[in-house]
């Protein structure tokens, strides 16, 4: 059926054309066009015109877009938080007798506090507004330059973003000129596209209305090499995917605000970070730890013990992602003195499989296929995960589409890694609580405290998810499978593995309270760690005053959680030091060759 190829070398086979005469209606048509380069040139001219229009579209796209674009949002590269930004509209203000006006909008991107200062023509900066995000009108713009700067602190030490507003007198402002340029571009685009469409359709209809349409050819004048061509194509495709997506080439341009982009960025930053010379403690976790644990505070508290804390906690990261993150940043298993792993009742919907795959993809290699895929509950998830390991591009679908639709904004967003990392470090947590708010799990009714804003209420409502039993079980499965894998990885390493429970929520009616910690991880797993923070340690935090929604600690809770965890850690290790007489424990950390054993404390 499928002809095998002859003895010619591959290269000459690939270059050989099938140019024997053909018969039949289809072949006749082929014969007409076989060497008809003019037809090809006509087609190419359409392509060229089309590409020109697309280029024009892309260049003018921000001004032309009338409806929200289909982007990565709501999909597996959904934004978790954006880069800090400040904008003014308009930036060039026409000043009349009473002055001009502009609207300033800002957002720190991750909910951290922000301070907007304005400087008029080099004078002393004045605090204009504060808050993690917001907008405010500046109706006093005169014939000067005004620099609006968004800082992460009120001492103006951390500049997050800046915008300059200029005032000028009378006449059509340059902003208005910009608008009219966009109008011109829009009309040029429409005319261009119409011309291309006309030209293309004109080319398609040289004769009278057709009544027959030929089928595909059924005979070939020369031998074909179906299997060889298909096999070579598959090989070339896998190779190309490897070059683009496995080599790190594409990872470097992942949207920094996407889950995958953030994981790639923080993992790479941690990998590149020079050793501090202190005893380094790595903290893993999901959004509960990202909101609840402050590395700044932990470092301050741990400095007396010579500890440095590093957090790789990321929203939506689950235990399998932690495993690959740890593997990436600590290939030798000797970098950290301790790794803190949180556990507790959570939920992981199956529908989030694409997200889990996408965010872990930057950390995967070809050899991880079976290992990674086995962690998924459903066959569709396993298949997708397996495919993502081999064909990495499949994990970045939304990101690639987003890149093609918004290339300029992507390029712009790639700069500013330092600012993003800094804003992550200085993040203090949300500054409001749920005191006065109550929740009835039977009716689902929420009574809000009056002090909460509409946005805060909405955030709380969104967090009131009633996960299904299977979502909860999936979360437990991931923890039970992947936490032991991390422990196994460090079984012959001096690194101590510390398990910590996470506070469950502000109200006992919430689903997080449905199980005890014992049912999350079996005691056999807990016993294999260096030590586990006692289960009741954070019970005191499970109150509305320490939370800003149903899952996440606020700034006050963050502070208390960090203090308690660090003090537990120091206390346990100091106690272990004194008991073990330097054999295993706090002072023995980082001693090469020491083996970690169960219950050694």
């Amino acid at each position, binding site marked *: 059926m499928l002809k095998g190829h002859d003895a010619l070398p591959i290269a000459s086979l690939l270059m050989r054309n099938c140019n024997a005469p053909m018969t039949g209606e289809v072949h006749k048509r082929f014969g007409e066009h076989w060497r008809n380069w003019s037809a090809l040139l006509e087609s190419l001219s359409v392509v060229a015109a089309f590409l020109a229009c697309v280029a024009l579209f892309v260049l003018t796209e921000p001004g032309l877009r009338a409806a929200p674009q*289909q982007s990565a949002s709501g999909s597996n590269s959904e934004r978790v938080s954006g880069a800090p930004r400040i904008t003014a509209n308009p930036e060039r203000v026409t000043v009349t007798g009473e002055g001009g006006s502009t609207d300033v909008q800002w957002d720190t991107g991750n909910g951290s506090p922000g301070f907007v200062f304005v400087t008029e023509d080099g004078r002393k900066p004045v605090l204009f507004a504060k808050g993690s995000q917001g907008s405010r009108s500046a109706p006093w713009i005169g014939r000067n330059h005004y620099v609006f700067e968004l800082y992460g602190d009120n001492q103006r030490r951390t500049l997050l973003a800046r915008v300059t507003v200029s005032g000028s007198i009378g006449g059509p402002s340059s902003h208005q000129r910009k608008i009219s340029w966009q109008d011109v571009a829009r009309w040029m685009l429409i005319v261009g596209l119409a011309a291309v469409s006309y030209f293309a359709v004109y080319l398609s*209809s040289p004769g009278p209305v057709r009544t027959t*349409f030929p089928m595909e050819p059924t005979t070939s004048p020369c031998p074909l090499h*179906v299997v060889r*061509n298909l096999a070579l*194509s598959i090989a*070339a495709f896998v190779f190309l995917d490897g070059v683009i997506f496995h080599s790190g080439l594409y990872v470097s341009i992942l949207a920094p605000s996407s889950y995958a982009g953030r994981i790639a960025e923080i993992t790479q930053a941690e990998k590149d970070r020079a050793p501090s010379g202190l005893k380094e403690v790595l903290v893993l976790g999901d959004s509960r730890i990202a909101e609840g644990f402050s590395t700044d505070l932990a470092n301050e508290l741990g400095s007396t013990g010579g500890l440095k804390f590093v957090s790789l906690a990321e929203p939506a990261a689950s235990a399998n992602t932690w495993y690959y993150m740890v593997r990436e940043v600590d290939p030798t298993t000797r970098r950290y003195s301790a790794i803190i792993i949180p556990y507790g009742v959570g939920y992981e919907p199956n529908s989030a499989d694409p997200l889990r795959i996408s965010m872990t993809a930057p950390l995967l290699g070809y050899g991880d296929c079976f290992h990674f895929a086995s962690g998924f509950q459903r066959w569709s998830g396993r298949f997708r995960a397996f495919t993502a390991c081999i064909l990495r591009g499949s994990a970045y*679908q939304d990101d690639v589409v987003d890149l093609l639709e918004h290339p300029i904004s992507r390029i712009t967003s790639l700069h500013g890694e330092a600012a993003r990392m800094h804003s992550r470090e200085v993040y203090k947590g949300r500054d409001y609580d749920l005191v006065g708010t109550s929740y009835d799990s039977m009716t689902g009714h929420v009574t809000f405290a009056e002090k909460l804003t509409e946005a805060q209420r909405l955030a709380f409502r969104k967090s009131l998810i009633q996960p299904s039993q299977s979502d909860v079980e999936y979360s437990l499965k991931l923890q039970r499978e992947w936490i032991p894998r991390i422990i196994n990885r460090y079984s012959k390493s001096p690194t101590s593995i510390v398990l910590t429970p996470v506070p469950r929520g502000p109200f006992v009616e919430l689903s997080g309270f449905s199980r005890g910690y014992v049912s999350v991880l079996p005691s056999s797993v807990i016993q294999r760690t260096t030590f586990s923070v006692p289960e009741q340690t954070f019970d005191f935090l499970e109150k509305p005053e320490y939370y800003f929604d149903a899952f996440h600690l606020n700034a006050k809770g963050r502070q208390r959680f960090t203090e308690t965890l660090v003090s537990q850690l120091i206390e346990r290790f100091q106690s272990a030091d004194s008991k073990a007489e330097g054999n295993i424990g706090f002072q023995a950390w980082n001693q090469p060759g020491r083996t970690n054993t169960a219950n050694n404390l």
Partner: protein
Amino acid sequence: MLFNSFQYWIFFVIVAVLFYSVPFRIGKLVLLLASYVFYMWWDPRFIVLILTSTVVDYFLGIWLEATSGPRKKLLLAVSLVVNLGFLGFFKYYDFFAGSLAALLHIPKSSVVLQVVLPVGISFYTFASLSYTFDVYWGKMKAVRNPIDYAFFIAFFPHLIAGPIIRARQFISQIWSWRTPAAIVVQSGIILVLSGLLKKMVFADRFAVVSDSYFNDPMAHPGWLAAWSGCLAFFMQVFFDFSGYTDIARGCAKLLGFEFPLNFARPFLARNPPDLWQRWHITLSTWVRDYVFMPFSRGKKGRLMLYRNMFVVMVLVGLWHGANWTFVAWGTYHGLLLIGYRLFDRATVGTAIDRVMKQRWFVPFSIGAMFAAFVLSAAFFRPKTLQTSGHVLSALLGFQHMTGEFLLTTGTIVLIFISLFLAVAQERSQFIDRLVLQPARVQIPAYVLAFLVLELFPATGPVPFVYFQF
């Protein structure tokens, strides 16, 4: 088991391996059993329908051949009653009973049975009817081998959503089957890839825009929103259905069978008759050969012609679904056909006719036909006539506002890519020619197709639109 699911391709590979590893006479039994498994994957209960239809038409075919006179007509009537009876009951009972109840002011719940529509019933019923008609008219001999006949009805690539195959085209292929040549296999692979691209990359992306509009047209007032929603919908339907057909044809080729063409660049049609030569060709030729021609035979006069044309188009509309919106859609296309005929007759030999035949004017004809076709989405997609009215008023500008432009950058790019590909295919069978191209052309084309399928599919397997018909 969707054609765009991994599950289907596992199934297909297993079936193909089994098929090629045994002699053809056993192989076709393998394919028949696989087809029944494929059908039962959707809903095992409805296998009874397909088996009944097969058994009835198999025996009726033999009797029809051996009979003549009024008894022959009776046998044909039995076939029609059985096949159309199933179709009518499962597809149209609730619709007509509900409509009658509304007319007589009877509670709808007292007459409606909430009948579940068996997948693919419209397609295999038409295939089966084509056989009895052809035997009745003496265009083909009755099939004596029950396996051959059952295989023709149930062959899985066409079973769910066509193309509608004819017995006299397909049965002869069973009798003269031979291992497909390399070019046929190559062609099959290209068709499968092209179908997957059409479905997963084009159709499912247009679906996002069309769903956002048609899920709540009231929320998107204005002519621009309506036109962009309707345009996206017809692009979705075209790529969805023609993608399905390509995969079906490709799979059939890979197993050594040939299915007819179902779509031929319909958006390049210049007028309504041309559109129906290009859009869902197997349906339009089926109704032409088995409904329009028999009814028009021996009847003279333009009025009769227009009447038949109109009735046939209404039936085509109704074939698509049991809803007044589909009847309205068929009516619209019937009127469009009649209107074009009248216009063509009135202008023949005039300056208008001469201008319309000029090559430079053809793009305008195509544009007008395209717009008229897109307009019909106002009837095709909404669930109620009331919503159709709203969409139509928006399309015609009666809402006196512009509204949002719903197409995204990505979908605009896709429209232009499809325009370019359609033009290239229309001019020079660009895609079909790929089969005969050397490796230096074929391999990059395959790699490009794989990359596009890897990077640009819309998320998750979305069911094919025509499954509901």
